[in-house]
């Protein structure tokens, strides 16, 4: 899940009285761990929340192609080049799949993409950080995909059927990406001094932004309670963040790399790694559009969209023409 903040998406209406009985029946189904399907009755707010969450997830996959895509043409070996190309293609597939899941809730892909391009919809803050070295490609696979998996595994049990099913497939591919990223880091950390330094530098830059991927601390999270009741969310932001830290610290040690957190220590009593203060001001700035790459990422997506407009128009015109021809025939 790459959903961190609310869209400024206005309510499309239907805020009238919802049948209390339907609501109760809906909640009972959710409580019984049944899956809600597209044609089932659902509260308008449930539909809205899921549309927002699934489309933000889709946008994140699509924007997320850019930082790594940046390295396909410069990958250091043919094996890495092919693997990275395949990986970025997987992200695109996830995006398509997720837009399709969001469409089952009644909003078209075109409309959702317009929300992204107009800046109305959010995508994960993590993709607003730059990818200046090859080691970043490894760090993204290891840490960003690792954090995404922590978030997404519980979503395989999300109450909304199409999203839950999409997540099962997405998680399988993400865990492959994560291993691939870790293997890049392992190769670098067993390499020459320049490679080792490259790996440490990437970890230094990605560590804190990855912790921010889980969203604001539980004390500030805006929409966790309702999502928990609806069984969209199964764990709190802080719980997932802790799981990620506990899983990742030993992996960094195995690589011989240092986590850039002077106060990080293992707490025997709780069995957890205790991490230092997260710079939530940086998080808010990046979400607000002031990250290092926000403008570049959106500009790249808009450019692709604008420059591709004539292709999409041609495809539609061709379909219309063929349909007319078959009617006339």
């Amino acid at each position, binding site marked *: 899940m790459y959903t961190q903040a609310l869209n400024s998406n206005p309510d499309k209406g239907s805020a009238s009285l919802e049948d209390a009985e339907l609501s109760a029946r809906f909640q009972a189904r959710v409580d019984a761990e049944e899956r809600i399907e597209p044609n089932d009755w659902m509260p308008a707010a449930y539909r809205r929340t899921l549309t927002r969450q699934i489309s933000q997830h889709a946008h994140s996959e699509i924007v997320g192609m850019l930082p790594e895509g940046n390295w396909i043409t410069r990958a*250091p070996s043919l094996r890495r080049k092919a693997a990275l190309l395949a990986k970025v293609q997987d992200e695109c597939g996830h995006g398509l799949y997720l837009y399709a899941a969001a469409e089952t809730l009644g909003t078209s892909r075109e409309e959702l993409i317009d929300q992204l391009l107009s800046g109305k919809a959010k995508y994960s803050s993590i993709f607003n950080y730059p990818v200046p070295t090859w080691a970043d490609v490894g760090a993204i696979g290891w840490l960003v995909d690792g954090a995404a998996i922590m978030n997404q595994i519980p979503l395989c049990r999300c109450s909304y059927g199409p999203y839950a099913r999409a997540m099962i497939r997405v998680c399988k591919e993400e865990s492959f990406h994560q291993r691939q990223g870790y293997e890049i880091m392992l190769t670098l950390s067993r390499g*020459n001094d320049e490679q080792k330094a490259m790996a440490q530098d990437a970890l230094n830059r990605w560590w804190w932004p990855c912790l921010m991927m889980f969203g604001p601390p539980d004390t500030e999270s805006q929409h966790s309670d309702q999502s928990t009741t609806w069984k969209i969310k199964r764990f709190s932001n802080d719980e997932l963040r802790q799981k990620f830290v506990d899983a990742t610290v030993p992996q960094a040690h195995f690589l011989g790399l240092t986590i850039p957190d002077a106060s990080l220590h293992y707490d025997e009593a709780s069995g957890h790694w205790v991490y230092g203060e997260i710079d939530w001001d940086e998080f808010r700035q990046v979400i607000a559009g002031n990250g290092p790459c926000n403008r570049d990422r959106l500009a790249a997506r808009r450019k692709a969209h604008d420059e*591709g*407009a004539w*292709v999409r128009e041609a495809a539609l015109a061709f379909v219309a023409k063929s349909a007319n021809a078959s009617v006339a025939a």
Partner: protein
Amino acid sequence: MTSISPSNAPLVQFLLRRADDALILGHRLSEWVGHAPMLEEEMALGNMGLDLIGQARSLYQYAGEVEGAGHSEDDFAYLRRESAYRNVLLVEQPNGDFAETMIRQFFYAAFADPYWRAMKASSDPTIAAIAAKSEKEMTYHLRHSAEWVVRLGDSTAEARRRIEAAISRFWPFTGELFSSDELDASVIATGAAIDPDTIRAEWLATVQSVFVRAKLTVPTSTWMHRGGRSGQHSEHFGHLLSELQYMQRAVPGAVW
């Protein structure tokens, strides 16, 4: 790491020519990732790029085996200068717009699909196996690019203007696909390869039939660019290699 000079043995050079075509076209397609006109085409362009890079890897690996000098696929890809690369000029041309990329792909696939089909009969079992895999992939590339040529030719005025411009840009680069020299001839004589000129008629028939469906005109000009097969490349090629080879040149001798 200094550049390598591969053996001039005919079979090695023959394999490098085919591998270079595939790698360079695959690299060009991969430049689209993140920038395609629609998500379905992100997938398709990435897929085709991946196929071609895969074909290149198999061919480089076999070239290394035949050469016996310990050169890996990466040595061939990352440690040769422009003049040691032997791809046709068509594949190194910059992507341009979507119409240009698709027509370049169509011209190449309309050749490579029947070429690899015929190469399944190679007397060399490794080449025959690579051909069998490549043929399947190129059949898809041909179908996909041909569908786009038809769509772009027979839809809006803008798409038609762009595809016509793309055809006139790339047409003069198609002749080199059918060329061969003494080096090729000695490989052809062993039965390991076919003469690419034997594909010309089928290629032209494919182009004609797709252009008829697209309401496009096949150019009549017979003058053609040449040079890639003898290592004389366009100005664009050095830029492509400086990007492709950047890491291996910047941090020489490292394992990635």
